[in-house]
């Protein structure tokens, strides 16, 4: 594992355990997982179904709580936060891109993009906002409701929303999972650009090697524990590694 100084770590999980159910029916979605996510890096989490990759993302993002172990955003131990503070932390320091249902259907694209700021009662940074929508190519769709946007456009609006508050870290859960390959590629290329040009930190869960190859680094989970990682991955290398895990 690459050693990094603490200030370079945007998020980390330390011996995380997440157990669902009790007794014989208990399922350990995470079973002592430890991982670090570097600042300004694009990291993909991979693993077979049931490996705990989504659970790790949820626990790191403060959407779910660990049974034991610790999850940190920056140097904040999420377990020490009450629901209200956790909510504020998500609002101020975390951005999300989900696989689907990213947008509030009653709000138009522009309102959706600035939603986290509106919730916080803040005004967006106009230059930054213009820059994002320019890059994402959605400036002519801003007054449209989600139902009037294509799937690719919807995900780009979601990406814009994740970026607009300049969060410390963006969590993406299969962001291109519902998109055709062209739209998916556009979205992922943009995410990569956000990391390279704006030093944004992104953590993404995916099961698709092609998608994961956009990341700087891939970590592999199996049965709820960290098993391996790969830097500057290629689709073929990831596929090979996954085959080994599956075997």
């Amino acid at each position: 594992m690459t050693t990094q100084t603490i200030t370079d770590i945007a998020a980390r999980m330390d011996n995380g355990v997440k157990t669902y159910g009790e007794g014989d029916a208990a399922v350990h979605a995470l079973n002592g997982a430890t991982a670090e996510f570097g600042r300004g890096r694009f990291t993909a989490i991979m693993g077979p179904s049931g490996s705990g990759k989504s659970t790790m993302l949820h626990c790191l993002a403060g959407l779910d709580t660990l049974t034991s172990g610790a999850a940190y955003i920056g140097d904040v131990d999420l377990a020490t936060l009450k629901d209200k503070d956790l909510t504020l932390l998500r609002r101020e320091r975390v951005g999300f891109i989900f696989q689907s249902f990213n947008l509030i259907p009653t709000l138009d694209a522009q309102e959706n993009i600035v939603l986290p700021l509106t919730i916080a009662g803040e005004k967006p940074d106009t230059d930054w906002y213009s820059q994002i929508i320019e890059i994402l190519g959605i400036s002519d769709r801003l007054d449209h409701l989600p139902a009037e946007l294509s799937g690719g456009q919807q995900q780009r609006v979601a990406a814009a929303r994740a970026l607009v508050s300049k969060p410390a870290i963006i969590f993406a859960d299969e962001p291109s999972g519902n998109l055709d390959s062209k739209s998916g590629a556009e979205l992922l290329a943009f995410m990569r650009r956000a990391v390279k040009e704006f030093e944004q930190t992104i953590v993404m869960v995916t099961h698709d090697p092609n998608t994961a190859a956009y990341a700087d680094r891939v970590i592999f989970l199996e049965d709820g524990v960290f098993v391996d990682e790969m830097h500057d991955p290629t689709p073929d290398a990831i596929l090979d590694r996954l085959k080994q895990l599956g075997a």
Partner: protein
Amino acid sequence: MVRTAFKSVFAHKVRLLLTGVAIVLGVSLVAGTFIFTDTINAQFDSLLGEIYEGTDVSVRSAGGDFSAATEPFPASVYDDIIAVDGVMAADGGVSSVSAQVLDSDGNPIGGQGPPTLGFSWGDTEALNPIKIQDGNGRPPAGPGEIAIDLNSARNANLELGDMVTVVAFNGPEDFVLVGLTSFGDADSLLGATLISFELEEARSVFGYGDELTGIVVQAEAGVDAADLTAAIAEVLPEGVEAVTGETEQNEQAAEISEGLSFLSVGLLAFAGVSIFVGGFIIQNTFRIIIAQRTRELALLRALGATGRQVRSMVIIEALIVGVVGSVVGIAFGFLLALGIRALMNAVGLGLTQSGMVLLPRTVVIGMTVGVLLTVASSLLPARKASRIPPIAALREDASRTPRRSLHKRAVVGAAVTGTGVALLAIGLFLGVSNPLLYVALGAAIGFIGVSILAPLAARPLADIIGWPMPKLFGVSGQLAKENTKRQPRRTASTASALMVGVALVVFFSVFASSTKASVSETVFELFPADITFQSTNQTDPEVPAVISPEFADDLRMHEELEVVSAMQFGKAVVGGDEKLIAAVDPATIDQVFSLGASDGVVAALVEPETIIVSTSYLEDSGHDVGDTLTIEYLTTGTVDTTIVGVFEANDFSDFAISTDTYVANFRYEGDAVIFANTAEGVSVDEAQDAVAPTVASYGNVKAQTKSDIVTEAENQIDQALVLFTGLLLFAVIIAILGITNTLTLSVYERTQEIGLLRAVGMTRRQVRRMVRWEAVIVATFGALLGVGIGIVLGWAVVKALADEGLGAFSIPVGQVILALILAAGAGVLAAIWPARKAARMNILDAISTE
């Protein structure tokens, strides 16, 4: 399908619970009304059974066309009856309802709710339901003696040997309390004050001569009551009749249940409103549940179920919910009936705590109403369910049935609303025979019409109502506003339920406010008198209670008063119908009361057997001044009377005769109203102070200035308004539950969305706020529609009643604003549960799409 339906009901039990509550409330009002009136009826029946237990034959004045006959007949009839073969015993007596008892400090005992009933003591124990138990003294046996029922005596802290005052025909008279009476085994006869005197004394107190008002007869063993009745009838003079005890008992029972049916019809009308409102809620719930189950229903279709089967399944679900809700509703009806009884007892009606009566009829009607309501409300949603295509199981967007065109909705809604308005207009302005039916039907159809149109107004109105919300409450307010606009039909339907209740409340407020405005106009116009004296008792809702004839004479002794003019009322049969006739003093009435007659018309009444009639009666009857009107009096029979003029003010009666003519043809027991003007230089206050001791000595007289009368009338109107509003509360509660229900279902539907909002940083508090303001917008929307309809309805009714003296139309702005604020507040309450649910939603459940 039946099994699937059952499973579905259980699977959605929480969602159906609130629907069930709407049914329970509606049915409980219906069942409670029946249970209450049946229980009271049964209680009266057993009471009447007690009264008539020993009575085989009852002899009384022949009422002829009169509904209530308490006319005296010669005492000699008694001797003739005693001589009839088969008569074992007979008791003759007199009774009166025009007495008031005062304690030794001059405070009135009873008479302010349940009446005071005066009797002569009957010596035959088997024929007298009034008993004196051991240790409670003895029956009144001579002058100056009285017996009073235990309950009244206890309430007034009276003991044997105390002095009490009775104000009746001769004014205040003092008596010694010698006996405390029971009625059968009970201490009281439903809270009435019972006073008994020895026969001769009773005649004197109540103003009878050598007369009786009734004779009760006990037959010898083995003698048939009907045969004996026929035998007695043979010896009776004209104008006196004999009926079996059973007949009279049945007559009285019928009269009581008629009085009660008035109450039950009133309560059922309000139950009807609740059920109507419940229909909105149930239909809305089923529609939402079906929308949410689109995939499941489509899957059933894909697996081979026909549209008809899907429809049946929905209807069977409704049937199950309806049956369960109705059963629970009937059980709640029991509690409600207990509550009404407790309320009636609290105002002194003295109803016993006997068992409640549940007749099969109550169960049948309660179940029918509840089940029909639920099933009928599910028909449209069921039809919609049957049209879900199988492909909807696989594709989300396939379930969206094309929205019915706005144009079509507008046309249908306008047509239905128009039908309602037309029926209303017919009922209000065309003078049909049963206007209330037209008005009620018109209002109901009008409500449905407006609810069809309401979705068209939902978006613009939500924009207006919600306009300040984004500014005040940020993103929560904005989302709340947008959420109400998402499904205008759902919003409108939810709001419509509240609209009905609010519309009726506002209608009653407008009506009350207009009546109040007219009352002061009318009073100041009609009553030029400085002070008006009336009895505080009430014995008959149609005929005012009387004050002892001595009272007017006592007033004339006061030099502070200049004109003292008494008015009497009595019922007589005019042109085949029983009518209320007013009697006035032709010499003085013009100075104290405006009949609205031309000069000299009232003075013409001094001639015997003359009458003046209202202009409206003259028009309707086709008579002319100078014609002879045949009037049938209870005491004197048919009398040809000449119409000598007309008057305008028919607020009290269409007929006026002179007091002399009244005394000649009615049994004169006292005056109903006495008007007085103050003498020159004496202020109204001074005059009131001067007569106050006289007024107090009678115990049951109130002296009122013009503004007192207005205030009293206004208070009565306010009380009625409070009562009606209270009864409409059920409908409003159901409507509020409807908002809760819709919001709960909407929150459930928006699980992902709420999860997303929480994920991107919305606090629980902001989520709660969002749901709360949505509820407030929906509630305010419904209330605004209700206020609009209520005002229009009030205006129409006031216009229609303009002829009846309802001149002014007045909108109680304060009350209307209060109603709006309360409705918005109700929205906050309605949102508590769904807002909590939304705020507690697990974010992960919400955002995981699998």
